[in-house]
């Protein structure tokens, strides 16, 4: 089992060292919230801030979400769990950030929980990996010997539905959407400014929280994330009405992987799959 206290200690130690030496000007980590069950994303900017850092099983936040807020060239240290490190890699591939400006504080962890349900977050709603893919410093023991579960297993039931039932399933889900946009705002890969849905000229979709505007918003967002979503599950966790967005993202990721034989956010050498042309690429997308 993960030693959360130990990781917290190491996180504080590293944050202190990096800020003290001036190696970085900000450490993106987790801080105290209004109670223990509700920690918050936290940006430590001075040694005095380090005291506020915490780490426990409710620190789900993907801190990569905040990277693009800082001007290019800012030296940043960032705490990354497995999926978060993949988001960093993907952002590097997309040239939004540079590796040389980052210090990755890797957190291998098992047993993160959703504070609303107290369920352990695993491959069902996220990529289910335990160890960061990329890191400079490791803050705990790597997790090994766990049964490997495909993040796509959860799709079985959904894939078994026929086309009409599946369409109905999504129409019902989208009807619930109140268009608060917490999903896109929680997503590390949703950095467009302005987002297509906020544009007026042309206006891509209705503003009212109903179909067809809701369908337009979600289907477009799903496709803008094709080959880019790293399956951190933050969009679904952020949703106040619990729309299982992860199902659609996983389905698109799975298709993408099958077609192009590349998993998002796994190597900084890769090029984003949909902007990279390779002669051997599948033509299935054109069929």
């Amino acid at each position, binding site marked *: 089992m993960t030693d959360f206290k130990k990781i917290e200690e190491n996180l504080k130690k590293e944050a202190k060292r990096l800020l003290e030496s001036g190696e970085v000007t900000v450490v993106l980590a987790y*801080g105290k*919230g*209004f*109670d223990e*069950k*509700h*920690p*918050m*994303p*936290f*940006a430590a900017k001075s040694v005095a801030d380090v005291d506020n850092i915490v780490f426990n099983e409710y620190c789900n*936040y993907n801190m990569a*979400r*905040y990277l693009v*807020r800082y001007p290019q060239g800012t030296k940043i240290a960032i705490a990354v769990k497995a999926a978060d490190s993949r988001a960093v890699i993907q952002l590097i591939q997309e040239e939004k950030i540079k590796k040389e400006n980052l210090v990755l504080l890797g957190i291998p962890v098992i047993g993160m929980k959703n504070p*609303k349900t107290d369920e352990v977050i695993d491959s069902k709603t996220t990529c289910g990996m335990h160890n960061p893919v990329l890191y400079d410093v490791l803050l705990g023991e790597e997790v090994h010997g766990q049964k490997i579960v495909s993040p796509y297993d959860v799709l079985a039931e959904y894939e078994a539905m026929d086309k009409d039932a599946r369409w109905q399933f999504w129409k019902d889900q989208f009807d*619930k959407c*109140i*268009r*608060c*946009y*917490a999903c*896109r*705002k*929680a997503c590390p890969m949703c950095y467009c*400014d*302005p987002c297509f849905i*906020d544009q007026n000229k042309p206006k891509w979709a*209705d*503003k*009212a*929280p*109903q179909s067809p*505007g809701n369908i337009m918003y979600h289907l477009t967002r799903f496709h803008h994330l094709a080959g880019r979503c790293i399956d951190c599950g*933050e969009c679904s*966790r*952020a*949703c*106040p*009405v*619990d729309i299982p967005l992860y199902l659609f993202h996983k389905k698109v990721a799975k298709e993408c992987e099958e077609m192009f034989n590349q998993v998002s956010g796994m190597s900084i050498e890769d090029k984003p799959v949909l902007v990279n042309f390779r002669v051997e690429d599948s033509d299935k997308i054109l069929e």
Partner: protein
Amino acid sequence: MLKKTAIEKISQLAAVLMEKGTLLAPVKEVAGHNFAEINDPQKVDLNFYNTIISPKGAFFPPKEDFIKYKIGKTITEAEQIKVDSKPVFLFGVRPCDVKSFSIMDIHFNAAGIIDPYWSQRRKATTIFGYAYDLNQPVDAADFYNSLGIYAADPEGSDIFMVKKDKDLLLKGITPKGEELLAQLNTLVDAGKDDEKYYEETLKKGKEYKTRFLCIDQDVIAKKLEAVFNNNDFWTKVSSACLSCGACTFVCPNCYCFDICDDTIFGKGTRRRVWDACMFTDFTLEASGHNPRTQVYQRLRQKINHKYSYHVKKYGVISCVGCGRCTRSCPVNIDIYSIVEEALKL
């Protein structure tokens, strides 16, 4: 008049109300409870703490259609959409949320600013307030005591309801409520011990404590005004904020809206939809200039509007401490803690 019914038989009461008009009541959804128009009386579920989204939608729906139009070559046809004035029963509203309606009235239903949609719905609606269950723990996010609101406060309700073990006690508060109560034949008269229980619950409600910030609203309003330019403070408290709309959309007191024309192939609807001061484009001007480009500016606006400008302009805080914004915030930003910290500056 005090009446009662077994909670088990709540669907019978629901069925009677549905015959008389539209019933809006809590139903269970995947993520928790929400108010919804009831089509099946079995769906009414009083086994909830509070709903995820506030009941403000009963008067100020997320989407309100005003005009349907058809743009022609020479003339444009338009037709105004009228509000349905059928009686509405808003069932199971917690005291803090009942309080929010009177604060919202300032904006939609006061001298000089009568919003016909809000005010017609307000008139057509009978509010069934519902005391919090004093035997259940209070949620850590709530702080309505700070605003002088108590867990079993009948003020503002037409009928006030209290849970007594397996029964529901219903008390007429306004003449409108009394009149309706007398017509509901699935209810039975309450006994002496029920009367006593009801009165005691109202009293005990004052002892059912939420977090408490000693709020002198003028002190807070002045303090927030004084720290307006403390950018370090606002940057710090907003550093986690995602600038989404979750907190304002679930809030019973947020009332900003956007008016838009949704047109397709020359046909369309002019409507208003909820808007949020936390959205990036909320203050975007036609020139392209945006006076609030930073997240801290938006969060500061949200908090100052509720706790400072609103107090100065209308003499009341625009928040009832229902805790929804804290519960729904994806990053656990807590408006109460921010006000508390500002007071310490």
